[in-house]
């Protein structure tokens, strides 16, 4: 029987569903058919309009009406399909595009209406035109415009016309929607006067009128109109408004304080009171009248006839209490509803609401607990916390699958309220639930909560002792590598250390190291505490064991600590040696050092120290050979920093080696030390370099010197020093007549401007060598190189005199060429030619004078004297030539006169010669110039001086070698 009933119900549902689908399909097809009919009408009206050449406003009006009608229908269809779209799709759809068809017709209708008004301003049916315009404006949400047009429509229409009525109603609706109820009432009343114009919407319009009355306080009238509308709604001729009226009429009654009449009303229509009061309350809530809604709901509870109603009303109350913040009432109602839920009497929607409410209110109360509002009211907070936990407990009953979550939230709430001891219990509960549910997240969270509570103020010792170790170990088990675990390990270590449980400490350290391998400092601190413990205890074995673990790299410690550890060990190792040294027992000390050095277990540091100490001990003992050997060894173990520390010792040892003519060893030690010091900041680097290079050069080991110098380039030594060393190498090449090497060296040095002044002298030597070997072209290129370098030297005073001599000698060649051009032609007659030649001679002499003066400016003493000498020669040559010239074939008178005038001509030249001699002498004396030309200047050809070497002595070279 029951089964049959079910089938019947299913069938009924199916039929209903089918009916609704059919209905919707029917309405769509009906709309489409209507559109089809309207299209035909439009075609026909357009045809007629064309036939009458747009001369009939009636046709245009009909056209506008049809367009409006079609627009409305299209809009209905568009609306239906728009609503059927998914929300997402709807969001991405342009409304304008979607409704473009209907809009186009609305606009067309509007245009047509405007055309009518423009073309036929006195058209008798213009009220209908205005009505269309108004309707269109309303459609486009242009309420002001709509209002204007509806008003015009009312004004232009006959009072008794249908247009007048419908315009009045439309206008009334605008006023109603705007809340202008007085205006709406007046229009509705006028419109309703004409009973024959009442259409199916009369019930709906009456409903609006009733509301308008209600709004202006005419409640009795409102109830009357509403009742009338209710009565008419039962007539099929009118739109059925019963549902809205049943709801609102009750509201009217309750609002007027006539709840009993409302109850009476529902009884009279045979409707359920509680259900309808529930509807009223819904409406009241929507209107924001919450207290009235609450009252109504309480009334509904009084008249409830079933559990279903009880649930529905309580569900509604739940929202109200939530809105009002009446959480205690809310809790009470929630409890009832949770009980219903347990009995599975709530429908899915109600379950949803209850779920939402429980979550929301518990969250709100919890927030109040943790918020600032009741911060200073501890009691209030405690009470709120208890309420919140009450809600969480209800939630745990409501949703038992997540009970651990709600217990945890309870713990959190107590924690926030500062009720740490209570929170501990709640967290512990949550932990056990979570463990049951194997929910790792909440196990972890609960533990964390417990941990946090343990750290809370006011936590009792009892609670702490009960939970702490377990909590820590649990936590570490859950989160071995978390940030917090880092601290937990330390706390646990401290707890164990305080208990002198070193074994647990060591286990904790190892575990910590495994999980936080990079937390070296903390590991180091733990290590230090353990090692200190052993040190204090004098447990060397255990200490050595830990040192070995550090050495093996199992534990990484800071350099400082490593150093400290090493030092501890070194101290232990060198304890005896130091004792021997302090007693002056050098040999014993040496033996002990050698022993340490050879000991394979000795650290590098120990070996290094031992080798260095051995070297210094041998140096002190005057054993240079062994001192060198151990120095080399020590250096091999040392890094730059170590060498820097002991550089003075190595310099002393190397100098001692040089002094003892052990040049090779000395040079090697210099270079080795330099190599180690290379990257260090040390002023001794220059000393080591110079010494190493010079000693190598002195030993003719140019290649070694070159290598040392080359490797010195990366040692951050000043270029000036490096250049000076390069110059040394150049000098070495020149002295050894290695011209190609010298040239290469010049080329290398020519890159540094600073070296130009120093390059000229060696270049002069090279030039001379080339000239001597007849390679004048090569010499010439060197000459231009010399002049180029000379030109580029800014401070010429700093130049070597030899270099200036070289420059002067190069310039002298040019002077000589000019003198040659003066002397190579002779004066001749006739007089015209003589004059030309004489003029030429003077021009040449002038050029020689200029060149000589230029040469003097070079600053070379030898050059200067040579210039004077050659000037004097040139002037005297011209004096002589002019004075001695006798014009051929001329009369003696002529010759005399000629000679006389020539005598006058040479006089200034002669004076000049004298001046030159005086100046030269002055310079000679002043600058103490000793030159070959001094003689010719002072004495001409009259005196010859010669220097003779005594005892056939020889000049020594720089190295002192022969």
């Amino acid at each position, binding site marked *: 029987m029951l089964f049959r009933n079910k089938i019947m119900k299913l069938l009924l549902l199916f039929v209903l569903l089918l009916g609704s689908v059919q209905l919707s399909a029917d309405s769509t097809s009906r709309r489409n058919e209507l559109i089809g009919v309207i299209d035909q*009408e439009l075609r*026909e009206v357009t045809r007629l309009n064309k036939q009458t050449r747009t001369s009939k406003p009636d046709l245009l009006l009909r056209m506008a009406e049809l367009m409006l009608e079609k627009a409305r229908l299209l809009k209905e269809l568009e609306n239906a399909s728009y609503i059927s779209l998914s929300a997402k799709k709807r969001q991405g759809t342009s409304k304008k595009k979607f409704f473009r068809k209907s809009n186009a017709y609305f606009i067309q209708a509007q245009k047509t209406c405007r055309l009518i008004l423009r073309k036929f301003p006195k058209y008798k049916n213009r009220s209908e035109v205005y009505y269309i315009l108004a309707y269109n404006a309303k459609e486009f949400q242009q309420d002001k415009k709509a209002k204007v047009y509806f008003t015009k429509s009312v004004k232009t229409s006959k009072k008794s016309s249908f247009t007048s009525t419908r315009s009045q109603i439309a206008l009334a609706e605008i006023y109603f929607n705007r809340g202008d109820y007085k205006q709406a009432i007046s229009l509705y009343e006028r419109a309703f006067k004409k009973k024959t114009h009442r259409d199916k919407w009369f019930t709906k319009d009456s409903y609006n009128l009733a509301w308008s009355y209600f709004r202006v306080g005419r409640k009795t009238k409102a109830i009357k109109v509403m009742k009338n509308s209710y009565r008419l709604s039962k007539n099929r001729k009118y739109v059925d408004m019963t549902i809205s009226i049943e709801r609102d009429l009750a509201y009217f009654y309750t609002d007027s304080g006539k709840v009993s009449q409302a109850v009476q009303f529902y009884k009279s229509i045979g409707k359920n009171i509680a259900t309808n009061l529930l509807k009223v309350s819904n409406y009241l809530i929507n209107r924001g009248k919450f207290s009235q809604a609450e009252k109504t709901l309480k009334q509904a509870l009084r008249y409830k006839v079933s559990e279903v109603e009880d649930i529905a009303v309580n569900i509604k109350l739940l929202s109200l209490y939530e809105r009002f913040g009446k959480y205690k009432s809310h809790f009470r109602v929630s409890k009832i509803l949770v009980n219903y839920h347990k009995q599975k009497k709530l429908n899915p929607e109600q379950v949803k609401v209850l779920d939402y409410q429980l979550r929301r209110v518990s969250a709100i109360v919890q927030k109040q607990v943790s918020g600032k509002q009741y911060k200073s009211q501890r009691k209030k907070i405690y009470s709120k916390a208890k309420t919140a936990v009450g809600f969480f407990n209800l939630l745990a009953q409501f949703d038992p699958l997540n009970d651990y979550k709600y217990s945890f939230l309870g713990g959190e709430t107590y924690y926030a309220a500062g009720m740490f001891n209570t929170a501990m219990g709640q967290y512990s509960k949550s932990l056990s639930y979570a463990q049951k549910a194997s929910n790792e997240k909440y196990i972890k969270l609960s533990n964390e909560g417990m941990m946090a509570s343990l750290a809370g103020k006011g936590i009792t010792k009892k609670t702490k002792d009960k939970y702490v170790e377990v909590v820590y170990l649990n936590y570490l088990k859950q989160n071995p590598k978390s940030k917090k675990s880092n601290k937990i390990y330390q706390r646990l270590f401290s707890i164990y250390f305080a208990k002198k449980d070193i074994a647990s400490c060591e286990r904790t350290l190892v575990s910590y190291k495994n999980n936080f391998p990079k937390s070296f400092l903390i590991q180091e601190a733990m290590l230090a505490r353990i090692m200190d413990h052993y040190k204090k205890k004098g447990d060397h074995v255990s200490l050595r064991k830990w040192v070995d673990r550090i050495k093996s790299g199992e534990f990484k410690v800071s350099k400082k600590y490593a150093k400290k550890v090493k030092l501890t060990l070194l101290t232990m190792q060198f304890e005896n040696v130091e004792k021997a040294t302090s007693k002056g027992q050098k040999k014993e000390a040496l033996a002990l050092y050698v022993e340490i050095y050879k000991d394979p277990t000795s650290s590098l540091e120990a070996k290094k120290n031992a080798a260095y100490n051995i070297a210094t001990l041998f140096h002190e003992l005057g054993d240079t050979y062994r001192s060198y050997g151990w120095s080399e060894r020590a250096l091999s173990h040392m890094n730059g920093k170590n060498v820097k520390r002991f550089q003075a010792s190595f310099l002393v040892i190397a100098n001692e080696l040089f002094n003892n003519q052990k040049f090779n060893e000395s040079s090697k030690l210099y270079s080795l030390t330099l190599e180690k010091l290379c990257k260090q900041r040390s002023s001794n680097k220059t000393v080591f370099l110079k010494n190493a290079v010079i000693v190598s050069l002195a030993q003719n080991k140019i290649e070694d010197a070159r290598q040392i110098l080359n490797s010195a380039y990366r040692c951050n030594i000043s270029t000036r020093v490096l250049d000076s060393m390069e110059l040394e190498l150049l000098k070495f090449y020149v002295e050894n007549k290695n011209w190609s090497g010298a040239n290469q060296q010049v080329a290398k040095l020519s890159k540094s401007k600073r070296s130009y002044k120093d390059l000229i002298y060696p270049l002069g030597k090279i030039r001379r060598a080339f000239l001597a070997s007849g390679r004048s072209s090569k010499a010439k290129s060197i000459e231009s190189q010399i002049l180029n370098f000379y030109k580029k030297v800014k401070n010429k005073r700093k130049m070597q005199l030899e270099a200036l001599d070289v420059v002067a000698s190069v310039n002298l060649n040019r002077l000589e060429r000019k003198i040659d051009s003066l002397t190579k032609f002779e004066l001749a007659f006739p007089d015209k030619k003589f004059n030309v030649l004489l003029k030429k001679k003077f021009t040449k002499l002038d050029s020689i004078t200029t060149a000589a003066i230029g040469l003097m400016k070079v600053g070379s003493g030898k050059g200067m004297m040579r210039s004077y000498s050659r000037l004097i020669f040139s002037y005297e040559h011209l004096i002589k030539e002019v004075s001695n010239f006798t014009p051929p074939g001329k009369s003696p008178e002529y010759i005399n006169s000629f000679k006389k005038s020539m005598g006058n001509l040479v006089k200034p030249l002669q004076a000049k010669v004298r001046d030159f001699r005086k100046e030269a002498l002055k310079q000679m004396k002043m600058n103490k110039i000793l030159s070959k030309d001094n003689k010719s200047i002072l004495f001409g050809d009259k005196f010859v001086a010669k220097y003779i070497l005594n005892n056939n002595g020889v000049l020594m070279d720089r190295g002192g070698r022969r």
Partner: protein
Amino acid sequence: MFFIKKTILITLSCLFMQGALANTDVAWKYLVKSKGTVKYYPNVIKNLVKEDLYFASIPYIKELLTRGKSKSSKELDFLIDKVVTNVGVKQFEVLPTRFLKKSKAPVLKYILAKKYFRQGKYQKSLNALNGTIPKNHPAKPFALFLEGSIFSITKKYKSSLSAYDECIRSSNSSNSSVNFNRKRQLSINRDYCIVGKARSNFAAGKFEQANLDYLDLSKSSHIWPEILFEEAWNSFYMRDYNRTLGKLVTYKAPFISFIFNPEIDVLRSLTYMELCLWKDTLKVVDDFYDENESNHDKIKKFLRKHGKDYKYYYLLAKSRLNGKVRGNKLLNRMLSSITRDATFREMFDYFQTGKDELEIINRLPKSRMKRILKLNLKDALILQRNLVGAYVRKKLHLSWHQVRKTFADMSYIKLEVLSRRKESLYSPEKSMNRGRGDIRNLKRTDKQYFWTFNGEFWADELGDYVFSLKSECSGNAL
């Protein structure tokens, strides 16, 4: 014997010729004697009429009417009546009113009244007739018809009915001693008067009486086919829609298919609409548009192109009479209808008989009179031809406008149907689409709707068909 007979015939013809010569000579003498006046014109006309030269005499009559001072005489009136009988009234209707008014001749009074009637001056028309035409005057029956028409238009139905009754009597009594043309005219006049009675009753809302009156019109009457449509309207007003449809379906019969009246379709669609047969209504409308819309446009261009080229219209009608059919179907139907129209036929026939006068004149010896008569005849015949052409043109214009108006009517009908359909869609409970309701009606065949008449037509049944369609309108809907 044969010889004797031949001699007699020759003598007779000579005598006739001599007689003719005598009459035209006499006419010439009077003409010469007139010396530029119209004093002897009645004599001229008399002699020409004697020779059956009616068209040739028209210029003299018209000149006499325009220039003459005398109020005319019985003899002249008789002459004019004789001429009108042979050339029609149209030749004189074109005369200005002031000349017509001058004459007291009853025929001319009738022509004047007709002219006023055409101008819508009904009272003047009545005044022109009032007591001007004696009871036994040949023009009386026509004048009575005119009078009845005026009374009917001015809603004096009683007077109109008595005028029509008298007209019928007068037309019947005048039959015996007149020529063929006049007989035909009188017969048509009588029929129109019979129909006039029906029309007056119809206008007075007495549809039953009108129906009986229409039955008085014989099916053999020349005007019966066109009047059948009026009968259909009457049935429509009597709400006898099946009879209306039956009468209208008669127009599909080959015998009277020449009738061009677009309003037949309007009435048919209206009738269907009254029976709530929406699809049928729309079909009539749509078919009408399909058939005529483009042709209608073409005719407009055609009429504009030919303007007032009356000769062209005359020739067009003539060619249609000779069986030449043009491409435009609608135009052909209009022309068919016009060429079968009694007025047109009369005017056309007069023109043809007018041509016969030319033979008479040609037989005359070469003289000035002959030349003058030829010229006169030519003028009158050209006028007659133009009158025929103008009539054809006017009728074409009328028909064109009628079609245009029908289009509008059809559109309005369609709109009405559509709006009713729409109304029913808006309120499904008032559905128009109720089906045909009755099984008998469902079994209707197309034959009943669109009668083809192929091989199943009996002339005596024409106009008596009655449909058996059942109205599909529900009580409250329409």
